[in-house]
């Protein structure tokens, strides 16, 4: 029972995750995002163009469709830009947290002792800008794992090293 009184602590004095200073993603990651957005828009544009060419009925709405397309593209870029500003991660003494989201801002915390394994991914476009994606897996499945993109590759490697060390210590 001693442990019990030991563990009743003032919850207000606990470290607050919401006050942690987050590291933003690397500025160059915006370029990677833009490339991805443009590829997506390009593919979509081709789809719309073929529709317009092949379907005579749809041709009457050419201006409406291209108008919607432009608004959509604009919104996509603005939203992603906004989301980039919101994203960030922080490595604390005993856990790692990542914040992301456009319309819903979510923060996920993974304690070091629950990490199963860590992967460092370099995508094709990310590699051009020397960036990497850190993927942290827990036993909580895909919903319980973290994917942190846009970290400078050296930085990502050192974070990975640090986490690995922490995991081994926890064991």
């Amino acid at each position, binding site marked *: 029972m001693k442990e*019990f009184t030991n*563990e*009743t*602590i003032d*919850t*207000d004095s*606990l*470290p*607050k*995750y*919401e006050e942690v200073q987050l590291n933003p993603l690397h500025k160059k990651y915006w370029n990677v995002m833009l490339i991805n957005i443009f590829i997506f828009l390009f593919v979509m544009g081709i789809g719309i163009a073929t529709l317009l060419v092949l379907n005579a009925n749809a041709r009457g709405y050419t201006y409406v469709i291209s108008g919607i397309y432009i608004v959509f593209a604009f919104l996509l870029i603005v939203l992603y830009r906004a989301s980039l500003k919101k994203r960030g991660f922080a490595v604390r003494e*005993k*856990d790692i947290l990542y914040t992301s*989201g456009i*319309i*819903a*801002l*979510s*923060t*996920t*915390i*993974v*304690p*070091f*002792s*629950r990490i*199963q394994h860590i992967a460092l991914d370099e995508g094709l476009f990310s590699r051009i800008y020397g960036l990497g994606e850190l993927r942290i*897996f*827990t*036993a*909580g*499945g*895909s*919903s*319980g*794992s*973290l994917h942190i993109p846009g970290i400078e590759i050296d930085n990502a490697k050192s974070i990975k090293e640090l986490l690995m060390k922490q995991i081994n210590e926890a064991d």
Partner: protein
Amino acid sequence: MIAPETNKEYDFSAPRKQSASGIIIMFANSFQKIVRALALPLILIIVKSKDSGNLALILIVFLSLLTIALALFAYFSYQKFTFFLDEKKQEFIINSGIFSKTSLTIQLNKIQQVNINQNLLQQVVGVYSLEIDTAGSEKKEASIKAIDHATATILKQKLLSHDLTENENIDIQTDNQVTGPIQPLLKLSNNTLLKIGITSNYGASLLLLTGFIFGTIQLFKDYTDALEIEREQITQMLSKGVTLFSMCFMAIFALIIILGTNIIRTFLKYFNFKIIKQKGALAISSGLFTHKNVLLTPNKVQLSAYSQNYFQKKFDLLNMKIKQASFDSADKEESKKSDIEIPGCNEQERNEVLNMILSHVPTKGAELKPNYRFIFLQTMIWIVFPISIFVLLSSYALPLLRNYLIMVIPYIIVVGIMLYFEFNRHRLYVDENFIIKKSGIWDVEHEIIEPHKIQAITAKQYFWHKAADVGHLIIHTAAGVIHFKYGNYTHIKSLVNYWSYKIEVSQKDWM
């Protein structure tokens, strides 16, 4: 049968073979596979070729050769299949394969669960199969197909008691011999099973029934098509016969069938359901034709849940689910298998089982209620949106629908009540040792986890909820996710901080 065997029989350190009758099982298994693969082509060959004299002979020769080959194969695989327990390295090793050899090594501490099962054939031959479930993202399944019951139980206990000393192992052995008279923690009588059949799992049986009905209709269609019967006559006859009376009759008939299938399913699955306490673990066995036997170690349980609906409450019945780590394996069935269901127990028995798993009976701590916005959004999705579409359609596109406009009122009442219940039952109870989430409309479910089983925590907020200080909480565990919606965000944030603190300070491992 067990009596003449000495303790030497249970020494697993030297490589052992399966029971000799394993040859039969292996033969049957491969025979079944071959038959399945060859049945269709063979039938085709027989049907296609007209002259039968030579063909029959060839087929008989071919089949007997195949049988001999399979028998040889079964014999050699039996010879080559060995398993042993390396007590020093704490490993269990299975060697198998005639041409290409495989050696499967399982570390004892990675073993999640050991199941002893028996299918129909194994029942006839009198052997059991032993399956080992391991933890880890890579799925390595090991199974021994033919083993006698005494060896299986002892091997199972050896596999699961890796951290016990040799001394205790002997204890278990002697323990095992007296398992018979031990009073089970929970035993379901036929009476209880009947009650369970009546009160639960309507959904699954309904699905089964719909499948059955559609199957019959399809069959009927094929039949009439094939025989070129005037279908119109029959449908006319049918539509004439469909009166209010026959509708009621049909409804009652469907109800009886649902209840009937429910009861039969329950008996098949849970006949002679027993839970026995065994050295700090729970041994669960059940089944009418296929015996299922599972040993559950409490510290591997990730999430326990119990649920109850209105009727079950009247009978003092609870349904329990105990979930272990599933590692969201690609195979859904596979992950379902690690869930253990206790179809019926009363409150006291539930407390006993929970006490066993969680080391004390969970208490409901401070209650968290969702914000009224919870019901607001649900109303939008389930009432406002469909009804406005219905009204719009009936007034502009399909005037025929106008006759049914009156149905909107009962719809609103029924769905409204359901949504109210959903809102009213969406609760989170938090105290030092337990997190309990209550939810459900008809079946009210309580999911219980301990803070140290948490893998990761997410707090989430839509930007338009910022001013109202409303947000969502998602707790990720190895056996699924617990979602609490529309809570007070300040409170949620402090809980997130508290739980991360608890996890990081706690010495308890999650598995």
